[in-house]
Every structure is written in structure tokens, then in C-alpha cells.
């Protein structure tokens, strides 16, 4: 196993259930089913998958922001480890969570307009983090800390922006303000949930560059949730691919793109239109659509869309295991080796 001293966050067999009421009927939907991965200090981990695969629910579980009591962590642990201490976030009391959230672990969201409060100024919102987590600071210290942060995230003329409301800022600026709030207490872990999806490409480039620079300066670890494999390739050290509430593949970025070992990852990589490939022609596709949590069977969640699926796949859930020579390259497929051999033959 991975050296325990080196991990900062260890998610072990995380299961999350949603309890839904439909009239008189109560249904329990398993949204996450045995999600495991680990995060090292300073690492950028990409969490990828299509809508509904459970990547945002994973992030919300780590932040303990699941909509309770509807959503519950039913099994598993989320271990935050620092200086030999290990804390299970999933079992933490609310007061201890408050100390953790926004302080040691921070999060930025896709839509800064909905995540920022429209009736507070930029200064009030960024300063709130200090009021909560650094109560010893004076008002003057807070203001200069806010100014420094705004400057650091590349907001031009920060003094004049202090009194601005979110609607007076552009999308890129709002995202910078969110990043400033998240970094206020120099967290160990930053969870970024599709932070650039709502932005234009040239603004996305600015924000990605900013995040990389800040990571180098502060040494924080980033969990980057995205559906854009291009962003993953440019930014992440390691990638976790999710499908139907489970981890289907997990590997170092280079290894994942070189030798995708789960049929879903292969399909995903083939179906993105790429700028550097020849133009005009049919794209390869993954037929069918993502099954809803209710439709998942006891076998592999991808079996109904997989071209290699056999009866075994429908009956038995494949474990996440090492494939190939690298210890860090894991995939959850019964036939990963066979498929890779076959693909080599085709080439």
C-alpha cells in the first residue's frame, strides 16, 4: 500500500445514500458505492466523469456539506491526516467541522454568482473567513489581509473592488474572489468543483494559471473536479475516473492517457473531439447513456454499455485492482489485461 505517512487525505470505501420520498413511498438510492482514493500533500488530483457519476457528491462528502438528512454517509471513512494525527471527517461533531471547513479544507464552486452572497461586498465576504477562523485579528489587520489576498489572486486595483458587489464583477473576477476566500486561511486541501466550466476559454486559461501559481506558492493539495479531460491533462498529477458512483480507474495522469485500462476511460478518451487530430469524420462514441442509480445492477455499472462485457461482468462487481506494471495504476474491470492485449493486437 501507499506509505501512510505521505497521505494527507484518505477516502476509504465511501458509500453515500440518498433517501427520497415520493408520496408515501420511501426509496433509498445508493449514490456513492465504495469510493476510495488518497491525496498527497501538494498533489493535484483530478476527479473526472460525466454528470451524475458522483464526483460532486464525493466533494460534498469531504466537506461534510451533504444535504442532510436526505443524504447520509452510510459507510466508509474520510481520513484527514496531519502531523501523525488522523481525523475521520465523516464522524466529526459539527463544532469541530466548523473549525475544519474553510480553514484546513476549502472549496470553490462552479458558479461563483450563486456561491457568493449578492448582498455583501467583496470585502465583507472575504473578511468573513477571518472573522470565523482568525478571531484574534483586528479590523485593520483584516482589511490589509483581504487586500493582500485580492492582490494575490490577480484582481487589478483591489482597493476599489473592496466595496464592489458580486454582480458588478465579471465571471472571471468572481471566480478570483472565490479563490481568495478559499485561500484565506492557507488550507491544506482545496476542492475545486468545475471552477472553470462556466468561463470562456481565455478566462479559463487565466484561472488555471492562477491556481497553478498559488499551489506552487502555498504547497496545498488540490482536488480538481471536472469533466474536461483536456484540463486534467494539463493540470493534474493523478486522475480518478468515476462512473455510476464508483471509481472505475485511478492512475498517474501520464499513465492513464497512455494506457487507459477501463473500457469506459477508453471510450471517454476516444469520444472527445481533439484539435490536433484530423478533422471531419465520425467520432467514436460510447453507445447508450449513464444508468440512473436505481438502474444499477449488482455487476459492473458499465456492463450495459461496454463492448467487451460478458456474463461475469453483469453478475459480479469487479474490484479496483492493479493492472499492468505500475503499482499506482488501478482499474475495476475483470478483463482489463485481455482488452489491452487485444488493443495492442489491433494496432
Amino acid at each position: 500500500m501507499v506509505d501512510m505517512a505521505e497521505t494527507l487525505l484518505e477516502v476509504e470505501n465511501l458509500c453515500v445514500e440518498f433517501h427520497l420520498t415520493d408520496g408515501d413511498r420511501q426509496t433509498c438510492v445508493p449514490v456513492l458505492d465504495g469510493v476510495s482514493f488518497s491525496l498527497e500533500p501538494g498533489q493535484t488530483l483530478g476527479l473526472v466523469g460525466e454528470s451524475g457519476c458522483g464526483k460532486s457528491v464525493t466533494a460534498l462528502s469531504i466537506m461534510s456539506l451533504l444535504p442532510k438528512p436526505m443524504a447520509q454517509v452510510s459507510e466508509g471513512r474520510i481520513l484527514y491526516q496531519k502531523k501523525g494525527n488522523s481525523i475521520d471527517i465523516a464522524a466529526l461533531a459539527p463544532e469541530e467541522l466548523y473549525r475544519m471547513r474553510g480553514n484546513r479544507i476549502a472549496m470553490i464552486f462552479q458558479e461563483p454568482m450563486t456561491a457568493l452572497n449578492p448582498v455583501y461586498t467583496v470585502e465583507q465576504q472575504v473578511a468573513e473567513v477571518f472573522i470565523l477562523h482568525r478571531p484574534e485579528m483586528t479590523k485593520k489587520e483584516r482589511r490589509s489581509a483581504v487586500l493582500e489576498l485580492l492582490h494575490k489572486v490577480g484582481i487589478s486595483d483591489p482597493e476599489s473592488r473592496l466595496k464592489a458587489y458580486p454582480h458588478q464583477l465579471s465571471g472571471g473576477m468572481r471566480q478570483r474572489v472565490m479563490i481568495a476566500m478559499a485561500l484565506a486561511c492557507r488550507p491544506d486541501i482545496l476542492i475545486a468543483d468545475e471552477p472553470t466550466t462556466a468561463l470562456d476559454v481565455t478566462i479559463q486559461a487565466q484561472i488555471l494559471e492562477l491556481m497553478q501559481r498559488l499551489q506552487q506558492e502555498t504547497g496545498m493539495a488540490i482536488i480538481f473536479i471536472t469533466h474536461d479531460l483536456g484540463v486534467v491533462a494539463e493540470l493534474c498529477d493523478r486522475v480518478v475516473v468515476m462512473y455510476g458512483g464508483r471509481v472505475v480507474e485511478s492512475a498517474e495522469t501520464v499513465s492513464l492517457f497512455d494506457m487507459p485500462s477501463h473500457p469506459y476511460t477508453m471510450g471517454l478518451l476516444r469520444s472527445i473531439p481533439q484539435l490536433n487530430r484530423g478533422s471531419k469524420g465520425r467520432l467514436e462514441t460510447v453507445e447508450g447513456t449513464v444508468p440512473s442509480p436505481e438502474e444499477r445492477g449488482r455487476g459492473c455499472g458499465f456492463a450495459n454499455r461496454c463492448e467487451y462485457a460478458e456474463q461475469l461482468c453483469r453478475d459480479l462487481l469487479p474490484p479496483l485492482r492493479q493492472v499492468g506494471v505500475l503499482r499506482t495504476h488501478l482499474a475495476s474491470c475483470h478483463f482489463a489485461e485481455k482488452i489491452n492485449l487485444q488493443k495492442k493486437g489491433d494496432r
Partner: protein
Amino acid sequence: MADSPLLQVEHLYHSFSVGNGFLKKQNTLQAVSDVSFSLAQGETLGIVGESGCGKSTLGRALLRLYQPTSGTIRFLGEDITHLTKKQMKRVRRKIQMVFQDPMESLNSRHTVYDILSEPFAIHKLGTTAERIKWVDELLTRVGLPTSSAALYPHEFSGGQRQRIGIARAIALQPDLLVCDEAVSALDVSVQAQVINLLLDLQEQMKLTIIFISHDLSVVKHISDRIAVMYLGRFVELAPAEELYHSPQHPYTKALISAIPVADPKRKMKRIVLQGDVPSPMHPPSGCPFHPRCPYAAESCKVTAQHLAALDSDAIRFAACDRIKLINN
């Protein structure tokens, strides 16, 4: 006739007036400025640009969903810019549109049959029996089971809903299809399916397509030629492959370099543009790109730039008179 373009757009302008309140100062927002291009039968023109660059407005102006402020649109040689509503009805059979969000563009209280037979009803085509048959054919054509006809839009997934949107657009066998961010809301694996469907339909029905999107990778995949828009203007127009391999305009260069590529080993120098897109209410003087352009000179602040041919064959166009200087 074979050589005459299907669609010809000349110096098209469209502006919105904003802040039309009592005692309020009225402002104009120039959404589309001086756009000219022509489109051959069976061709696919991609239009890319960032939000607010006017690409959707342009798409809608082409269908006269917005009345252009000035300029002409010729469709099959006929000037359609000033046709009456009644006369437009005839043209609309031939020009159809696919929208981004099928949940919003499909009536949620209508069944798929209602939605798909409406074009026939509007144009008084066929008997009920024929319409039922046509709807079945349309569904098969876009890869949906014929049993879908009795269902409502909310009973479908996003990709399937977009297929319904496409089926409605091709119902009257149009010549020109304007797709406004038609695949942007879909997940990659579903997006690929819908792109393939569009390519198949284009081949079967000899469709001409204008494909509007902010996603250059998708646009490049589907288009023969690509126009890059910035603040209402075309800044570059070129064949897809060439635009990607040798972008000429500084904005196109930055746009292409900013797109993340799914290849971790490729380390490309990213050109990061400073600042945001200026507001179209107060566009910068001269070349609208000059405040963000890494090559801007004093003259760019004054001289307006127009799309001009870069080669003698008039295949590539760009709106920058310093291109030769910059690229040497």
C-alpha cells in the same frame, strides 16, 4: 446555379437598444458589426467566439428572428432581409434552427408527436395518417424508437431531447440548419453521438450547416470553414484545418493556445490574454481587440480593422493590418 452560394451575407449589422426606460438614457449595444460571408451548398461553417461576442445574435439574425439593423441576407439568390412575416414563412421551411437547451426549446406540455408534427401543421402538409408516418420516420432517422412519439420531453435524457430538437429542425427537409450551441450542454460521450448524428444527416440530406459554439475543438471537428468572432466582428475566417495549424489573427492564436489538450505529454506555451472581454456597450476604439492584444501598436487604437483576404485565392481572411509584421 451550381456556383451560386446558398447563403450570402453582406455587411450585416445588428444592434439592441438597452435601458429603454422613461427618463433613462438610451444605449445601443452593437451585437453584430459588419459581418459578411457566403456559404456554399453542403458546406459547414463553424462560428466560434466567447460569450457575448455576438455569435448567437448572428445566428438568429440569419433566420430573421431578429431584424438586422442593416445589411443584406441573400438565400438562394433572393434578398430575404425585408420579407414580410408571411413571405418569411416560405423561407423558414428551408432554414431551420437547433437550440442549445432542448428542455427550454421543446414545449414541456406537448408530446413528442405534437412537437414533431407541428411543422407539418403550420405549413398545412399531409393528412393525419401521413403525419403519423412522417413522425415515425423522423424518430427513426434521429435514432429514437418510434414509441417515443407518445412521451413528453421530460421523459428523455439530455442527448435524446437534443435528438428530438434535431428531428423537429429537419422535419421540413430544410437546406440550411443553424445549430446554436447544439451540443454544449451534453456530456462528452453523448456529445459525440449527437455530432455523429448531425454528420450523418448532413450526408443523407445534403444539409448546409452553420455550427455556432464556444468550443473550438467541436467546431473544428464538424466544420469545413471556421469564422472567429470577437465583439460582434469576424476577426478571422479560414478553412478549419488551416485555422488550427496556422492561426493568423492574434486573438485566434490566443484562443487556440488556451484550449486544454487531452495529452499530458504535450507542453505547449499558453498565451494568456490579460483582462476580460470589453463590454459591447462601450467597445474600444479602433481594433476592438487592441486592449488585450499582445502585439497592439498605437495605430491599433485608432484604425478600425476590416476582414481582408490574406492570399490571392481569397481563401483566408483576417481583420488585422499588422499580420505580416506580427507573424514575421
